[in-house]
């Protein structure tokens, strides 16, 4: 299916025209249609040749006492995997927090009360951009014995804005809704403070206000709330957990 320049939507559509200045070259390539590169299975010995090249390269580098590049040999993969995990490009939550610490504010009861009626935002903001940096993630505990249900959260930084990507099959029943919270737990595990991120409608992306200190509000909580106009937490939590880096 190739774009037809004689009947081009870009020429008929003012919305497209607006994008031309910024994305013109990409739009032109897209209109050429999908690529026509046919995958070709590698020959049986291609991988061996690559291994050989890398081993030879490593030995040559070692001989010249330059920084050693690891050879591709049947090494202990688990050890390298651990090393990879330690030095991965996932930004540590501690680092991210440190950079945000200066603008973190003490969350007062008044501020929390305001946040309790906050509207959920950005339901379509799923992570598919290279600007999204994964800071932390985790699968939340199920608190209501619904063993077949799950909730996975990922904390992202997109150009300095933090947001949670929630993936859950949960849905609210009639006369109730689900609400997403961040909780500060004290040293005894008691709830010291909490912030509502708003009502949720299953999976989606939910912004975290700029002034929230995630060192304090580190627990993610999902509750079932009766549709009774009371903005306070019902106490009926169905998922809870701490995403980690």
């Amino acid at each position, binding site marked *: 299916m190739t774009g037809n320049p004689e009947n081009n939507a870009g020429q008929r559509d003012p919305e497209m025209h607006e994008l031309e200045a910024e994305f013109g070259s990409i739009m032109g390539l897209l209109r050429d249609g999908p690529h026509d590169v046919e995958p070709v299975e590698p020959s049986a010995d291609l991988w061996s040749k690559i291994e050989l090249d*890398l081993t030879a390269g490593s030995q040559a580098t070692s001989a010249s006492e330059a920084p050693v590049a690891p050879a591709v040999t049947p090494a202990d*993969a688990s050890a390298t995997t651990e090393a990879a995990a330690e030095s991965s490009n996932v930004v540590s939550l501690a680092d991210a927090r440190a950079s945000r610490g200066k603008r973190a504010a003490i969350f007062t009861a008044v501020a929390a009360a305001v946040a309790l009626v906050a509207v959920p935002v950005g339901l379509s903001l799923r992570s598919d951009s*290279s600007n999204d940096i994964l800071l932390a993630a985790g*699968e939340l505990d199920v608190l209501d014995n619904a063993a077949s249900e799950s909730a996975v959260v990922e904390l992202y930084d997109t150009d300095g804005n933090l947001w949670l990507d929630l993936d859950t099959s949960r849905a609210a029943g009639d006369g109730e809704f689900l609400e997403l919270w961040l909780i500060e737990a004290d040293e005894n595990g008691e709830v010291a403070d909490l912030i509502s991120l708003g009502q949720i409608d299953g999976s989606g992306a939910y912004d975290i206000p700029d002034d929230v200190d995630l060192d304090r509000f580190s627990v993610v909580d999902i509750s079932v709330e009766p549709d009774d106009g009371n903005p306070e937490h019902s106490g009926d939590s169905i998922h809870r957990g701490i995403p980690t880096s």
Partner: protein
Amino acid sequence: MTLTATLPRVEAWRVPAAAIGYIRPVPPTLEERFVAGDEAALKEAFELHAPLIIGLCRRLVGSEAEDLAQQVFVASWNSRERFDPTKGSLKSWMAGIARFKSIDHLRAAGRRPQTGGGEPQDMGEIQAENGRITDRMVLTEALSGLSEERRTVVELAFYGDMTHAEISEKLSMPLGTVKSHVRRGLEALRAELGVSHDRQS
């Protein structure tokens, strides 16, 4: 009086003492392990991407596609620290290496690619043509990585030659949502293309 003092059933909220125990860290991605020097990740990348990279190499240099693909995987591993997984995919980055190396490969061999018909006249034209082939592949592959809804909108806009309004009507989707999908989709594709254009090795 603090807000929390008014909360019902506070006891029921007790965060389990083993709170840390239910943390399930996300394992590093293939890209992250690759950059960190995990040799198993290179093998996985080869198994995953070799067919497409060889196919691309065939378009770029003709019958010596496997030789070029071999160079691509070796070069990508040796310069892996220059790859930034937060900016795009390993596949796009490798495609970019294939593009750059194809020109060196053809110069060294003193030959032209066997593209079949309409063969370019000089290295400048070959370079432009190889860039276009690679860009199209990177964009198409990146498109497949978008969410289904966004991909559908972008495909209708560009492959289907439909206006935003026509897409809105066809998918029963608000015009603003169509506009947002197209813009965010193009932003994602541009980022992926940027990875393939980085001078990697």
